[in-house]
C-alpha cells in the first residue's frame, strides 16, 4: 500500500470528522470531555484548598467551610508567615541555584564524553552512572553526614550544595548524553580535521548548541533540589540556622500546629510558588526533562 494512499485516507478521515460526527463519535467525544474535566477537578482540588484558605486570614478559617471561597479575601496570614519563611527561602534559593549550575556543567561534560567518545569500558561505566539515578538517598546518608563532619562542612549550607551536585550528576549526564547523541558526528569530525582538540571542539561547537538542554537540566535540578526534604532534614540535622524552604515549612505545619489552617495553607503556598512559576512559564522544558530522564533511550 503506497504511503500517499494512507495519507489520503487519513486526511479524508479528519475532514469527515470536522464536518459531521456520527452519533457514536459524538457520544465518545462528550464522554472524553466529561472524563477530562473530572480528572481536572481532582488534580486541582488540593491546590484550590491551599489558595482559598490562604486568603481567609489567620483565624477566619473554619474547617467545615474550607471548601468555600473566602468571603472577605485578605492577606492577613501572608505577612507573618512570610516573615518566618523569608530567611529559609533566601537560603534555599542560594544553594539551589549553585547546585543546579554546578551539576549542569559537570553533566554536560560527562554527557559529551559518553555520547561521542567510545573508550574501553565506557558502556560499563555508563551503566553504573545510570544506576546512580536509582540509588536511594538513604544508602549514602550516613557516610555523607560523617564525611561532612570530617570535611568541616557541618553547619554550612554547602553540605546541601555538595549532596545535590553528587546526586544530580547521573540524571544531568543522561539528559545531556541523549541530547548530544543527536548532534551529527560529522560536525565533530570536521572540527577534528581542522586540528581542533577535544576540549576546543566542545567549547566552540558543542556548547553553543546546548543552550536548550541547559535550560532543561537547570529546571530539573532546580525543582528537585527545591522540593527535596530528605537531604535537607538529614544533613542539617533540623538546625534552624540552616533551615531551607521544605524543612521550615515542615516546622510550621508540624504536628503541634496542625490546627492553624490559614497559617499552614499560606506557608505551603508560599513554598510552592517558585517551582510553580517555573512550571507555568517553562513547562515544556520541564516535560522534556521528565521524558529524557526516563531512559527511553
Amino acid at each position, binding site marked *: 500500500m503506497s504511503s500517499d494512499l494512507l495519507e489520503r485516507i487519513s486526511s479524508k478521515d479528519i475532514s469527515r470528522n470536522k464536518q459531521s460526527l456520527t452519533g457514536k463519535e459524538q457520544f465518545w467525544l462528550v464522554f472524553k470531555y466529561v*472524563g477530562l474535566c473530572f480528572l481536572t477537578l481532582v488534580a486541582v482540588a488540593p491546590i484550590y484548598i491551599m489558595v482559598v484558605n490562604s486568603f481567609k486570614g489567620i483565624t477566619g478559617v473554619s474547617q467545615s467551610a474550607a471548601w468555600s471561597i473566602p468571603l472577605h479575601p485578605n492577606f492577613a496570614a501572608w505577612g507573618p508567615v512570610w516573615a518566618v519563611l523569608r530567611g529559609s527561602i533566601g537560603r534555599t534559593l542560594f544553594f539551589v541555584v549553585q547546585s543546579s549550575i554546578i551539576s549542569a556543567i559537570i553533566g554536560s561534560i560527562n554527557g559529551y564524553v559518553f555520547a561521542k567518545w567510545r573508550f574501553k569500558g565506557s558502556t560499563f561505566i555508563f551503566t553504573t552512572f545510570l544506576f546512580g539515578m536509582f540509588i536511594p538517598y*538513604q544508602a549514602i546518608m550516613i557516610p555523607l553526614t560523617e564525611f561532612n563532619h570530617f570535611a568541616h562542612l557541618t553547619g554550612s549550607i554547602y553540605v546541601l550544595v555538595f549532596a545535590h551536585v553528587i546526586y544530580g550528576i547521573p540524571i544531568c549526564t543522561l539528559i545531556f548524553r541523549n541530547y548530544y547523541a543527536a548532534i551529527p558526528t560529522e560536525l565533530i569530525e570536521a572540527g577534528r580535521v581542522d586540528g581542533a582538540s577535544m576540549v576546543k571542539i566542545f567549547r566552540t561547537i558543542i556548547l553553543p548548541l546546548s543552550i536548550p538542554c541547559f535550560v532543561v537540566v537547570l529546571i530539573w535540578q532546580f525543582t528537585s533540589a527545591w522540593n527535596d526534604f530528605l537531604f535537607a532534614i538529614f544533613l542539617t540535622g533540623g538546625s534552624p540556622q540552616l533551615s531551607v524552604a521544605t524543612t521550615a515549612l515542615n516546622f510550621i*505545619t508540624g504536628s503541634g500546629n496542625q490546627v492553624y489552617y490559614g497559617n499552614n495553607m499560606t506557608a505551603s503556598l508560599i513554598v510552592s510558588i517558585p517551582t510553580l512559576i517555573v512550571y507555568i512559564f517553562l513547562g515544556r522544558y520541564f516535560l522534556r526533562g521528565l521524558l529524557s530522564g526516563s531512559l527511553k533511550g
Partner: protein
Amino acid sequence: MLVFVYGMIGWTVKESLGKKTNSYTTAKGLVGLKNYRDLFHDPEFTHAFQNLLKFTIVFMVGTLIAGLIMALLLEKGIWGEGFFRSIYLYPMAISFIAMGTSWRWLMDSTRDAKATGLNKIFWDLHLGFLQSNWYSSERGAMYAMALPAIWQMSGYIMALFLAGFRGIPDDLREAARVDGASETKIYRHILFPQLKPTFLTVLIILGHISMKVFDLIYGIASKSYITKVLAIYMWQVIFDFQNFAKGASIAIIILVLIAVAVIPYLIYVVKTEEQK
C-alpha cells in the same frame, strides 16, 4: 564522583555490618550479618515492610491505570489538550511537604455533618457511605496514603504513555482500520503490544519511587506508627535512637530491593540501545 558515591555505599555496607549502635561510642569491629538478622526479628521493621508492600501495590496499580486513562483520553488529539496536559502534570512540580498540608485536611477523618475535606463532599453528595477514616484507620491507612502518591505521579505516567502512543506511526493504525478492525481491537492487538517498553519503564520508575517513599508520608502523617514505611523507620532509628548500624542495614535493604529490579532493566536498556 562515581568512586565517591559507590565508596559511600560501601561505607554504608560496612557500617551495617558493624556494631556502632550509637553516635557516642566509637565501637569498631564487625558483627557480620547480626544487624540484618536482628531486623527480621524486629516487629516494627516487619510492620514497616508490610506497610510498604501494601502501599507499593496500590500505588503502582493506581498510578498505572490513572496515567493510562489520561493518556487514552488525550492520545488522539483533542481540543484543549495542552491545557489538560499541564493541569495533570503540575503536581510533579510541587513539594510533598507543601501538598501534605492540603492532603492532611482532605483526608480528615471526621464524619457526617461535622465532616471536612473529602468526607464532606461525599456527605453533601449523599454518598455518605464513601466516607472513610483515611490514613487514620488501622487497616486502610496505607491504601489511603497511596492516593496522594497516585495524584502526584499519574501526570508523569500520562506523559510517558503519551510519548509512547505518539511514537507509533499512524500508518499502523490506519492500515488496521482499513482492514476493518474495531477501535478496541486496534488498541488491544496493535497499540498496546507496541507500548511494551513504555510499560516496562513505567513499572521500574514507579517501583523505585515507591521503595524510597519518605516525604509524602512524613508530610502527611509524620512518624505515626500505622503509616510507617522503611524510610521513615530508618530516619527514626538514626535520629531518635542514634542507632547507626541498624539504620545502615535498613538503607542497604532498600538499596537491594531497588537494585534487583533496576540492574537487569538497565543492562537490557543499554544492550538494546547498542544494537541500534
